[in-house]
């Protein structure tokens, strides 16, 4: 801890500050490619995940096309791979489409963009550190994404891509002949997931250590922005849940191949004859995979949500010029979500054939996890209440976060109710629910965060008008795509069906599905606006200074973009990050965390406000 004389504003431990601010001339490679600077790594993650967002979105459009025009010519995919059949895709290609859509979106977009891009960029800046605790490990965490992407890409070349769903349930994924895509493709999928896991783990170690150990003097836990709270809690979730997935992944790999002469059958019962192969010699339990998988994947969905919640809280506070409503309840709620998140995994398995008594326990815990989310929603509305704002792209995306999160959270209550889940499990109702929380909430939050922190990352602003147009078409397209899926679910349309219309009770749903596809195409193409705006503004956006939003938290006290070492002078924190419209200052509506007010100044303000 360095002592800072507030009067002089000069750091006593001068040399230490300088040691980090010194630039050693780095090669282009070390500066921009293999950088250990958390900001560069954060931006690398951002670029990569935005690209993977387009890939994942294209796969989804393939899915939607098939559902709107079953067995007709499919653009791009049909021409490239199925010219022999006149462009008509095959059923196993369809299973690959939705498997890889989910895999890419979950492992290569949402988790890395929240933790890898924003976590990396913001954590040291917001806590007042000069970089992450382990910068080289941080660099590795990005570069482990590369073999992950490579593995997923290779899996397309062998057997056409994995086809057991992103949930990869054995026995389908365990027996190599059980399905197209259960061969080499599935193996590469497992390897890809393992690499992503390593990347996440490296990141979460960094985040926890940095947040716990490297906060600036004066920054107590309850003076951290909620973004940091969310990143800390997310990192803890990652650290505890991920090893289970990795273990499960290795168990499945060993089930598929006899490595070192060991041929396991953790998940494969005996006596099954699949594809006329020899009967399996097993003794394993398929349900074991589901328990292990969901033990990770349920916390994973909170990993995919909490950082966005934290960022939206911060953005709302900044743009409404108000403190966050109920800071401590917000922080505690996030912790409650994370804690409860570890004991609800069975709600993915109500119908799976596990002991039904477990269904009752998981139902109660799942119902209770709606509570902290509800508290947070009320607090967000409370934050906007009495605020003072303009509808810029950031506010719009954050408000969309709130409203769409309400829908997603409320639809979750249906599936938490076990008897109702009997009916809606594995139907489009579930698809609607998780797209509302993952896309409607998280991704809109991410869009807002991109607009909000872009100036800090690149020293320029994005075009707000284009941002609003992008928001409008995305919002309308999104709701047109996913709200009707609730109805499809109630109508009993199952998930993962290449052709639902051969079932008589689903035939009449074709027009609604076509409407959904049309909305999805609008929504997909609207993202071109975002990407165009993003990349254009990097080079041609209007330049800004340190604090274009007049915000309080520490990152806004640095230059835009911050130099290597972040802070000219190690910051000292005097208050929380939400002192907007504070009566302590009369000439402006923000009061930065690092701004020192002498006791006399505070007294003056107090008396002024009380008079």
């Amino acid at each position, binding site marked *: 801890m360095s002592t800072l004389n507030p009067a002089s504003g000069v750091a006593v431990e001068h040399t230490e500050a300088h040691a980090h601010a010194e630039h050693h001339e780095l090669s282009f490679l070390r500066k921009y490619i293999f950088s250990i600077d958390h900001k560069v790594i954060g931006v690398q993650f951002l670029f990569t995940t935005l690209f993977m967002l387009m890939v994942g979105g294209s796969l989804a459009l393939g899915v939607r096309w098939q559902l709107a025009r079953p067995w007709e010519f499919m653009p*791009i995919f049909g021409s490239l791979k199925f010219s*022999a059949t006149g462009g*008509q895709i095959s059923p196993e290609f369809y299973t690959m489409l939705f498997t890889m859509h989910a895999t890419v979106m979950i492992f290569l977009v949402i988790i890395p963009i929240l933790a890898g891009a924003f976590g990396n960029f913001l954590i040291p800046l917001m806590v007042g550190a000069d970089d992450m605790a382990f910068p080289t490990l941080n660099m590795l965490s990005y570069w482990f994404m590369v073999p992950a992407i490579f593995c997923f890409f290779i899996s397309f070349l062998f057997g056409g891509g994995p086809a057991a769903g992103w949930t990869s349930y054995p026995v389908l994924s365990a027996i190599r002949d059980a399905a197209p895509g259960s061969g080499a493709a599935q193996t590469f999928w497992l390897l890809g997931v393992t690499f992503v896991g390593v990347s996440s783990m490296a990141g979460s170690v960094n985040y926890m250590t940095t947040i716990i150990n490297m906060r600036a003097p004066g920054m107590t836990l309850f003076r951290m922005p909620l973004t940091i709270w969310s990143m800390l809690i997310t990192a803890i979730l990652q650290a505890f849940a991920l090893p289970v997935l990795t273990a499960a992944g290795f168990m499945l790999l060993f089930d598929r191949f006899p490595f070192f002469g060991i041929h396991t059958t953790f998940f494969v019962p005996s006596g099954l004859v699949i*594809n006329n192969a020899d009967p399996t010699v097993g003794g394993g339990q398929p349900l074991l995979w589901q328990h292990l998988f969901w033990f990770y994947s349920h916390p994973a969905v909170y990993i995919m949500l909490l950082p966005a919640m934290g960022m939206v809280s911060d953005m709302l506070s900044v743009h409404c010029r108000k403190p966050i409503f109920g800071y401590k309840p917000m922080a505690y709620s996030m912790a409650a979500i994370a804690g409860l998140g570890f004991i609800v995994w069975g709600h993915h398995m109500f119908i799976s054939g596990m002991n039904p008594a477990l269904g009752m326990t998981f139902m109660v815990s799942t119902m209770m996890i709606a509570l902290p989310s509800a508290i947070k929603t009320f607090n967000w509305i409370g934050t906007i209440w009495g605020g003072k704002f303009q509808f810029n792209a950031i506010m719009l995306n954050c408000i969309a976060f709130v409203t769409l999160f309400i829908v997603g959270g409320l639809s979750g209550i249906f599936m938490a109710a076990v008897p109702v889940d009997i009916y809606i499990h594995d139907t489009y109702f579930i698809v609607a629910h998780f797209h509302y929380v993952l896309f409607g909430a998280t991704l809109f939050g991410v869009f807002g965060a991109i607009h909000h922190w872009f100036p800090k990352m690149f020293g320029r602003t994005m075009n707000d008008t284009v941002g609003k147009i992008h928001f409008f078409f995305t919002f309308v397209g999104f709701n047109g795509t996913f709200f009707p899926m609730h109805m499809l679910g109630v109508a009993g349309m199952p998930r993962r069906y290449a052709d639902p219309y*051969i079932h008589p009770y689903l035939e009449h749903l074709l027009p609604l599905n076509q409407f959904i596809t049309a909305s999805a195409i609008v929504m997909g193409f609207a993202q071109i606006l975002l990407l165009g705006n993003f990349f254009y503004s990097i080079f041609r956006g209007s330049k800004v200074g340190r604090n274009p939003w007049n915000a309080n938290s520490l990152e806004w006290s640095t230059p835009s973009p911050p130099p290597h070492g972040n802070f000219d002078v190690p910051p000292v924190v005097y208050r929380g990050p939400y002192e907007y419209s504070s009566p302590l200052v009369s000439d402006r509506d923000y009061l930065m965390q690092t701004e020192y007010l002498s006791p006399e100044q505070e007294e003056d303000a107090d008396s002024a406000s009380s008079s």
Partner: protein
Amino acid sequence: MNAQLILKFAVITVLLLIGCDAPNAEFVYSQRTGDLISQARAPVEDTVDGHFGTPSQLIAWLRFSDAAIRFGRLQGQVMGPGSSSSRFKVSLDLSSVEDDLTADDLEGLGLLWITGKYTDAVTENRKGKETRIDFQATGFDASTLELSVNAQLESPPDSGDKFLIVGHVLLHGQKNYMHHCMHCHGVTGDGNGPTANYLNPRPRDYRLGIFKFTSTKQADRASRDDLKRIVRRGIHGTYMPSFMLLEEEKLDSIIEYVRWLAIRGEFEKILVTELAADYSKEEFNKQRQRWKDSGRNPDDDPLNDLKGFLDEDFRNSIDNAASNLDRLWARAEEKSSVVIPSIPRTDPEKDPHSIARGRELYLSAKTKCAGCHGIAGRGDGPQTESVQKNKLGKQYDEPGLFDDWGNKLKPRDLTRGIYRGGRRPIDIYRRIYAGIKGTPMPAFGGTALNDNEIWDLVNYVMSVPFPRRLPTSSPNSHGSTPTKSASKPALTASRSD
């Protein structure tokens, strides 16, 4: 504008350009066709295409009777002129059509005039030659009852003129086939659709005209009932699923299309077989070499022989092939082709020795069942390990049993109780009586075994999955232990084959 933005737009444009152009599915030719020299291959391909068409333009060769292929014929009569020169009012006999006809259902179907002034209508083609007009229906308006055709008619046809619209069943069948069947069985019915690579056993290749599980005699083709049965019930133990609930009319149309694909394949096979003896690449090269070695006498040029054949005899070959196929496929529909036992099944409850007798027959030298199916019925008989000869007498490259499509087969494991062709007694009877077409499973009926013996074998086969259920009252006991010494010579006899 920066480079990345331009690149992004360029990539999207390229993808859209590639992506928006719909490729055409094509029929493929058999491998043996590909092995012919080009001068022989081209006429075969042209002939097949000329009589069967391409997937986007099917041709209904009316040479085939309805019993062989029901293309679908709708009779119609002109009722009056229409609203334009290519339309006229009609009344159609739709009694054979189950669902309401939509405008699209008639699109592209051939229209043949039976009476009236357009029966022999000709037109000049681009080369100035007179050709028959190929009338096609292009649409039907159910509200005004107007039919539109693909030609501008100088004068409307007279009221009362009769015509035939051909092919609605086939076209409908193609549409349903592409939805439900194509991804395994392939566009050409060659068992090589995109999914086929993952399936064991592979999907049926129709082009030999052979279907394994039929109710007809050994020399006969499969009947519609057979195909319907397979599609309805699936084939347990394979990836052929059951379409039990598929609407009857869709199922019928799919069957017609499958038969059409099979006949197309067989037709191609017949033509190729005639030519392959002399004009496969291998054979022709040998001939050509001999011709060269003997001094290139122009009278002996093998190509001249081919030309002569194509000019004079090829038409006959085509004719004969079509007639034979029509006859064979139509004959399979007749009752006389169906294998029906002369006596009811021996009731194993009433005649407890039936199963034991069946067991003896199973192990006997007369049937040699155990040679393939193994002593315990597990499909692991010694034949599976010896090198076999194919129908032409040529040896296979590796030991084991092969079907006519070249796939290595495992004889049925009778202990599992999964019977691909059906589990009814009559089904198993038919497997034994008429064999399984296209496989080494021989036909025993009418020659080697009489009906009593076949029923005994059926009873034995049906008992194999339930070894403890066999009656213990017979001294010649049950199941797995061969007791008669005659069974041993049976085994050694089969091994020496």
